[in-house]
């Protein structure tokens, strides 16, 4: 059978004990002989410090803790072994020599027993050894390596810390309640900010710490979860919390989950609370719903407008191919007007943009015949569609029968804010130098669409006057509704 401590066994055997303070081995006391025999037979690290000179003996397990000081330290004084940490060691060895044992739970050593520096942990107990008359002869120390336990504990703590971080980092409020009276054990920052950051809740029951929820029935819900083990889940639950800066009550909406927590025997011993303040989120959702509802409304109104235009076009067209061409043109005009409405966001199109679109379509840039004068006036999206359509119909009419049908003809377009109270929009279309006309050639669909006036405005009026020099058309409406975004 191999020896338990081959290295120290050899040192022990070869040491010249006769020159040491312990004297020759056959002179040794029975206590020292017994302990050295135990030590050299044990796989546990052991140490003996003996006699007034504190001669130090140890086995291979302890030698590993001595590092490079071994084997020189074997048989020398305890102080020479631990000279660098003597301040810490001296009081406990002195205590042992005075008869008082000491145990140390966790001493850390860097050991090279596996060929690389390694953190290790040991538990020690210094035990005084006495002769039959009570005199302390020396100290015996058995060590237990607890590196694995320490590492396991550390890993558990790391894991626990990380889980704590998970709770802390959670965007929702989390709290843990213990016992049947629901005492706060833990709450993350988000939970605090939800209930009012300055509250002191840990160790208190929910009824004490957040007393305003009692009359709102939340304690009853917690009791039910604790008793039945069934989770409670609610969305957008209204709750009143004294969470204002002065502790004043605020109404909030929260998503709330209460889940039972169980101990190792599966008995319920607490409740996990998860809560999220969804007040702003819900308000935003409501705004979105309103917006999409509003868009749907607009779309339906515009479809109704297109339907009316299509119906009027078909009703008054001489034949299908003319109707098809007219309808395509009119829808294109509405589409262009939409571009200006969308370009600058809501209600950002101006009268000038709409007039310019008509000119691009109907005038010749090399020989312009349409003159325009007017201020920069914003126009709401509904009237903008009408303005575009009316200008298009007037221009089409002018090309066929009016000023633009003869080479000398021209058109003046002007618009302004009018009325004594400056509360009217007014636009004038004035044809000059065209063929003389006394009235509308036909009550065509174009003229009818023009007479429909400005969509979405109050007191809209369209007046056509047939003068010797050409057609004059006055379009007026209440300015506020003309510029308003519906």
């Amino acid at each position, binding site marked *: 059978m191999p020896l338990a401590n081959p290295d120290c066994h050899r040192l022990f055997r070869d040491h010249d004990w006769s020159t040491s303070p312990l004297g020759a081995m056959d002179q040794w006391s029975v206590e020292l002989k017994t302990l050295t025999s135990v030590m050299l037979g044990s796989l546990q690290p052991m140490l003996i410090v003996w006699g007034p000179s504190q001669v130090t003996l140890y086995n291979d397990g302890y030698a590993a803790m001595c590092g490079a000081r071994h084997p020189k330290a074997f048989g020398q004084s305890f102080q020479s072994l631990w000279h660098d940490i003597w301040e810490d060691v001296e009081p406990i060895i002195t205590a042992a020599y005075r008869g008082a044992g000491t145990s140390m739970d966790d001493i850390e050593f860097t050991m090279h027993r596996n060929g690389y520096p390694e953190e290790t942990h040991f538990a020690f107990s210094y035990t005084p050894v006495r002769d039959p008359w009570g005199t302390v002869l020396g100290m015996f120390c058995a060590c237990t390596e607890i590196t694995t336990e320490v590492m396991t504990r550390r890993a558990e703590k790391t894991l626990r810390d990380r889980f704590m971080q998970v709770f802390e980092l959670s965007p929702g409020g989390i709290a843990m309640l213990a016992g049947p009276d629901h005492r706060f054990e833990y709450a993350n920052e988000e939970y605090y900010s939800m209930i009012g950051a300055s509250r002191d809740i840990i160790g208190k029951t929910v009824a004490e710490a957040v007393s305003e929820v009692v009359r709102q029935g939340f304690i009853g819900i917690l009791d039910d979860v604790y008793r039945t083990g069934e989770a409670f889940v609610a969305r957008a639950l209204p709750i009143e919390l004294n969470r204002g800066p002065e502790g004043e009550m605020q109404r909030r909406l929260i998503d709330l989950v209460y889940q039972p927590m169980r101990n190792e025997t599966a008995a319920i011993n607490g409740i996990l609370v998860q809560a999220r303040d969804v007040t702003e989120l819900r308000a935003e959702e409501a705004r979105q719903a309103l917006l999409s509802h509003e868009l*749907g409304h607009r779309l339906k109104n515009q479809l109704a407008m297109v339907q009316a235009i299509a119906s009027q076009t078909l009703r008054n067209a001489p034949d299908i191919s003319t109707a098809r061409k007219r309808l395509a043109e009119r829808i294109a005009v509405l589409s262009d007007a939409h571009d200006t409405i969308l370009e600058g966001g809501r209600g950002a199109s101006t009268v000038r943009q709409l007039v310019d679109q008509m000119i691009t379509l109907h005038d010749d840039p090399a020989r312009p015949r349409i003159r325009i004068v007017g201020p920069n006036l914003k126009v709401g999206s*509904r009237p903008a569609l009408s303005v575009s359509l009316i200008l298009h119909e007037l221009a089409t009419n002018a090309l066929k029968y009016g000023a633009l049908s003869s080479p000398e003809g021209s058109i003046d377009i002007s618009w302004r804010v009018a009325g004594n109270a400056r509360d009217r929009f007014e636009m004038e279309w004035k044809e000059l130098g065209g063929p003389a006309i006394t009235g509308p050639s036909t009550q065509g669909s174009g003229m009818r669409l023009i007479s*429909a006036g400005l969509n979405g405005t109050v007191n809209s009026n369209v007046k056509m006057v047939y003068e010797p020099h050409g057609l004059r058309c006055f379009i007026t409406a209440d300015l506020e509704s003309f510029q308003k975004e519906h």
Partner: protein
Amino acid sequence: MSTTILVVEDDGLIRMDLVDILIDRGFAVLQAGNADEAIEIMEQTPLIHALVTDIDMPGSMNGLELARHVAETRPECAIAVISGRYSPSQGALPAKARFLSKPVSEEAVARNLAELGITER
């Protein structure tokens, strides 16, 4: 005497087309661009068989309020309400009134009026 219908709609194009449709079907049609105009017309017209009104209109009352006012003051007048918005909530419309969603077809207008007992004579 023909059946008289009052059309109330602030969108000139849509109103024009609705009026044309009803005239084509043989009704006598009066028109207004908002509720205030409509009330003026009604004050001067002793017999109106049906009111066809939009909801969203400028002025002192909207189409729903006009419909309720007419239901109260002229219980014999049939009422059809047209809107691009969602259907009005229960109770917002007078009991016998019809709701039509924009855009409305000629067919739907005629059918709903007929179901309210309104036909051209």
